[in-house]
């Protein structure tokens, strides 16, 4: 099972996928999944669990998720190579493009591009939150938690940590489960 060639094959695939993962790594998750299951490195259920756990652990979720796959395939070295393959190539691209962007900072066309793109980006952030809410809010109680969280973050200087904690506690007490 702990096969070094498998780790390298996985790392090479991840490096390729992370380089084309426009819109974030979740967009290439289906490809990773078919690679992993086709090679028998993990079952569908295991893959789903990797996803769930990487979402609750704080920190770099997708890097961590790929590291769980790497861990399964090649132990600790597999986890480390997977991590690097996931964030290495995009980091080089971020760095190069940011330097280029910065160099042309004062040009008129760049100000135009900036003014044009910023609203789109922000719309996408709100859409991302909305899509998350649609997936998470399986009961009206949960939808209420989402709405209250929006209000609290906008209207108060309360730390988001307390808001998250409150959501977790209410859920843990069983107050947010749908009533039958």
């Amino acid at each position, binding site marked *: 099972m702990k096969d070094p060639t498998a780790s390298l094959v996985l790392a090479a695939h991840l490096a390729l996928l992370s*380089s084309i993962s426009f*819109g974030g*790594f979740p967009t290439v998750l289906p490809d990773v999944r078919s690679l992993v299951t086709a090679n028998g490195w993990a079952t569908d259920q295991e893959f789903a669990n990797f996803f769930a*756990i*990487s979402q*609750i652990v*704080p*920190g*770099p979720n*997708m*890097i961590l998720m790929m590291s*769980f796959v790497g861990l399964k395939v090649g132990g600790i070295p597999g986890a480390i190579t997977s991590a690097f393959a996931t*964030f290495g190539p*995009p*980091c080089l*691209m*971020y*760095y190069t*493009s*940011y330097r280029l962007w910065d160099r042309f900072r004062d040009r008129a066309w760049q*100000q*135009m591009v900036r*003014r*044009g*793109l*910023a*609203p*789109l*980006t*922000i*719309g*996408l*952030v*709100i*859409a*991302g*939150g*909305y899509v*998350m*809410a649609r*997936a998470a*809010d*399986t009961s009206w109680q*949960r939808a209420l*938690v*989402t*709405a209250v969280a*929006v209000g*609290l*973050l906008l209207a108060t200087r309360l730390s988001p940590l307390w*808001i*998250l904690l*409150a*959501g*977790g*506690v209410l*859920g*843990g007490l*069983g107050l*947010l489960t749908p009533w039958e």
Partner: protein
Amino acid sequence: MNQTVEARRVEERVALTALFFGFLKVSLLGFGGGLVWARRIVVDQQRWLNDHEFAEILTLCQFMPGPNIVGITLCSGSKLRGPLGAVSAVAGFILIPWTVGLAFGSLCLQYAHLPILQNILGGLSSAAAGLMIATGIRLLMPQRSRQTALLFAALAFTGMVVAKLPLLVVLFGLAPVSIAIAGIASPRVR
């Protein structure tokens, strides 16, 4: 527009360790969406960047492949302290949280099916979704006087949520129009 931040940057450079620990915090607190914390720490708490600069970095990162939040970390570090700043910020974001997460996660994977854990996760994700929406609204505030900006934010939202178009289609479909209108609408373009 950026003069206050620019002036402050000249008199006191942000320490590399501050970047490391700042983004370590972003990473550790970033349940279900690091963006919420990145904006809070970088803009509200440390005042390293203002909302405009943060939105600009976010925009650039959304047009690049890879984990956007790592891109935001890298670009913020690079903007404040150059290449070393970029490395410090990314190291802060990844190193410790990755190690802890891998250990803790491997343990958790054995208990992933317990109902109470599922309930807690459910409540957390509902709250996290709300925080994400609120962060987007906060970022929109500096743009609120521009009607075209509000229109294109709404169009991007609709494209994703109502029309359920793929992200790439929304981005590359709306971008040329939005840029063109921004060019026509701003009289000060030289």
